[in-house]
């Protein structure tokens, strides 16, 4: 099976727009747009559809593909290790989490290029299942009073937030192979509706002022799931869907690079990271 089937490609298109929101993205958008998040997201979706058409042409140029792959690789590694370090293993040194993640990326690069698409097909099914579970358990907890407008309508901030959304959700698509032929805008819309539902859950349950003090509000809403007082505190299991999505993007970005260049970049990341820890005393993020 050297070719990529339609289902696998579509599942990758579904999974990719979300992982760049981990950590910094959701926090920024809520901070900028407040309770008018729905407006900025809808504008962001429209802008994103437009951006995808531009990216279809840009995806053919190899230099842009490789450079954006490298940027996405570094950024996603950074956000994923910070997220895992604060939420799962807070005393373990970050470099160990980084090393294990790098090993997994190297292993997936050693296999053929179509493997990550098949893996994404199965991870898609799992993350949809987890999301339906969270929707069903968290929807009754939404408080409608959290949505009414409490802050004033600043147009500039809302437009900046929508631009932010558009870029974060469409930038990973440049790294896909054959993007021009196989791109399907309906799947992108579905994925953005998923993100919109996630935002409504976050703001509906926590409210705008509370959601803007947390670093990872998408983790905090999972803390509120409580079924029959027995199934509680399942946030660590449900958050794994974000780890899977981030891994998909790492795998696809590393597909575009030569094996030796990839090894060189990853070892460089390790060395620079370990040097930075000893030199810089304050935490960047």
């Amino acid at each position, binding site marked *: 099976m050297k070719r990529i089937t339609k289902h696998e490609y579509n599942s990758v298109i579904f999974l990719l727009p979300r992982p760049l929101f981990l950590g910094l993205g959701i926090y920024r958008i809520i901070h900028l747009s407040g309770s008018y998040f729905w407006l900025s997201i809808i504008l962001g979706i429209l802008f994103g559809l437009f951006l995808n058409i531009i990216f279809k042409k840009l995806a053919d140029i190899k230099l842009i593909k490789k450079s954006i792959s490298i940027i996405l690789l570094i950024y996603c590694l950074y956000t994923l290790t910070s997220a895992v370090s*604060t*939420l*799962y*293993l*807070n*005393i*373990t*040194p970050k470099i*160990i989490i980084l*090393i*294990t993640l790098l*090993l997994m990326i190297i292993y997936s690069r050693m296999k053929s290029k179509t493997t990550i698409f098949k893996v994404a097909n199965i991870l898609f099914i799992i993350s949809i299942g987890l999301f339906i579970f969270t929707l069903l358990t968290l929807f009754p907890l939404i408080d409608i*009073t*959290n949505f*009414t407008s*409490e802050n004033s309508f600043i147009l500039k901030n809302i437009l900046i937030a929508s631009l932010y959304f558009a870029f974060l959700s469409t930038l990973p698509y440049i790294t896909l192979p054959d993007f021009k032929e196989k791109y399907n805008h309906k799947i992108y819309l579905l994925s953005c509706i998923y993100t919109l539902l996630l935002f409504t859950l976050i703001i509906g*349950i*926590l*409210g705008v*002022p*509370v959601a803007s*003090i947390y670093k990872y509000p998408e983790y905090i809403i999972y*803390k*509120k799931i*409580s079924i029959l007082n027995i199934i*509680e*505190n399942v946030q660590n299991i449900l958050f794994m869907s974000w780890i899977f999505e981030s891994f998909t993007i790492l795998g696809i970005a590393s597909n575009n690079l030569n094996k030796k260049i990839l090894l060189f970049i990853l070892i460089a990341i390790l060395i620079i990271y370990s040097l930075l820890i000893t030199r810089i005393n304050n935490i960047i993020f």
Partner: protein
Amino acid sequence: MKKIILVFIIFLLSGCFNYKEVSDLAFISGFGIDYLNDNFHIILEVQENDEETSSYLLEGSGRTIESAIQNASLSFNKNLYFINLDILLISSEAANKKLPNILDYVTRDNNFSFNFNIAICDNQKHAMENILNKKEIFGRYINSLFKNTDTNVINIKLDKLLNHYLNDKYDIILPVFNIIEDNIIINEAVIFKNKQIIDTLNEREMALYNILNNNQKDYYLTLENNIVFRTSHYYTTIIFKKNTLYIMPTLTGTFMEFESLELNNESKIKEITNKVNEEFNSELDTFIKKIIQNNSDPLGFKRLTKIKDLPNIKYHINTKIMLENKSLIFKSVGDNS
């Protein structure tokens, strides 16, 4: 083969930093904070699973909450584990001066969940020891006390409290534990505003607050000739239209106790329900006047009306009482006709 050995060595280097043995954890179910003389005094209740002692109490003090907790854990041989926390008690001194610090500590740590109750209690050690003498665990006892729907306690958990605290348009309301004859009774609630306690509510007022806030607890109303009306469920809508606040509660319930009344008679039923209606209206009126005059806002009137000074507000109450079922007997037992 070399690759497998390399991977295995990397795993061994990971050091298991976050490894916690279950038998080394001390499960904390009650946490009390007091603030005297620039020092935090905390008291912790640690759960044990023995038959003789159900829990221990630990005390400690320090300049910050974290140093107080370290002080308290010096005398105990296990790691303190806060995830199953059931109740957080704050004294009124601490609530007046240090509420933001307490909320910051509790929100910043990943080891606190959202599911614990918060209350104000001044004599924390006495309260905890009372329950320990009954061989029960303090946190669980309070948890079930809050869940008991027969009583009208105001139950507030951390996420709601945080929402109201960070949001300027609400005032925080917290229940108060009073100790009467070695029993803990929750019969008061206080309203906070700008780090000051501005109002207290007694039992009947707490019940009315619950009605206006749609927390489904029981409410009963007594008329003159010992007729008691008890609600089974209620629903309130509050709308702001044409510069007046319309408050429209709807109560459905049954009659629980009465003398000399026939429920087969339609006109008599209407008479009684009208009486209940009037009585309820007057109670609600006095309650709302009281909170408006003190400029306290636990229900969010300022958010709805966008008026900053509450005493200037106009309101109108419109209740509706519905009789759901007539209970088991037609005539009252004490009736001779």
